[in-house]
């Protein structure tokens, strides 16, 4: 009888098949992860409640008009001055009369901490460009992140991103992200 050898299955083509699959997945998928600026919309009011009384010194109105000109409290400003102005507004280091009041709140790690009552109200026209709006939004968010970073460095000695979750919560409470998206009824129609 002829000697029968158990021949091994040639696995060489397996690699080709796997490569084919790999290339298929490479072309049909996207690797790019999207990044975005996270914001929260205010819930819609169910009843016609009277809006809470607004104290003028507590609100900084940032207006971007249809020609993309930025104005803070009615005065035109350039984009690179916004962060600075917003930081001064939120922190009010000298306790000035024309800048926001503070509200003493009990916050872990900080104890009784003077939380700013300041609120930035960002208003736009229907013809404002989205890019400009996002840039202004970015500058405002940046002012908050910088303040939080400074606070964390002062209190914990590390930057905001390196804090533990509890510490981060506390700092976020001490320096809230108080940027309001304008109610559309206040927006002028074209």
């Amino acid at each position: 009888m002829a000697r029968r050898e158990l021949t091994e299955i040639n696995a060489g083509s397996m690699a080709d098949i796997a490569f084919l699959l790999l290339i298929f997945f490479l072309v049909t998928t996207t690797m790019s992860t999207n990044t975005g600026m996270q914001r929260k919309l205010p819930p819609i009011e169910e009843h016609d409640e009277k809006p809470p009384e607004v104290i003028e010194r507590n609100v900084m109105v940032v207006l971007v008009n249809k020609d993309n000109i930025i104005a803070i409290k009615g005065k035109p400003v350039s984009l690179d001055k916004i962060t600075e102005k917003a930081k001064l507004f939120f922190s009010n280091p000298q306790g000035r009369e024309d800048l926001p009041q503070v509200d003493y709140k009990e916050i872990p790690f900080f104890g009784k901490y003077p939380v700013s009552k300041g609120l930035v109200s960002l208003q736009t026209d229907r013809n404002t460009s989205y890019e400009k709006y996002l840039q202004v939004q970015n500058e405002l968010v940046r002012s908050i992140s910088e303040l939080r970073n400074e606070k964390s460095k002062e209190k914990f000695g590390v930057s905001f991103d390196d804090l533990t979750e509890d510490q981060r919560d506390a700092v976020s409470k001490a320096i809230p992200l108080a940027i309001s998206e304008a109610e559309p009824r206040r927006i002028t129609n074209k």
Partner: protein
Amino acid sequence: MGKFSKGGKKNVPAISTASLPDIVFMLLFFFMTVTTMKETDLKVRISKPKATEVKKLENKNLVKYINIGPPINKYKAKYGNEAMIQLNDQFARVRDVGPWVNAERGGMDPANRAKMTTALKVDKTAKMGIITDIKQELRKAKALKITYIADKTTTDMFNK
């Protein structure tokens, strides 16, 4: 030295390629897990704005995209050059946003519904009018977590 060289012809064995498939499969699985399938073809042109204060979108399943931008060349003749809304893979009007949010939310795991984020992927040339309208619709639909899609940049925007 005879100690090291053996006499006679010596065959160099072929390098075994048996482990090659394993390596390739490993690569394959890596790509399968880190990538996502292209779900929609964009019908609107979106050139993303740049910003510095952006975060990575964490859980892809919780993010639903609203694309806003001028129609691509193919649809220009039909729809003009004004920014339009694209939901999933079709054009939509502002009043379709609310029902779409509810439908998308309904299709999610009940435990995750509150965590849904609506991502506004907007062309930078778009006007705020349409954005404001959409934000109003989202507020009505109680989809309050939004994110403005932007590319991360490290340079200050006013230096350019």
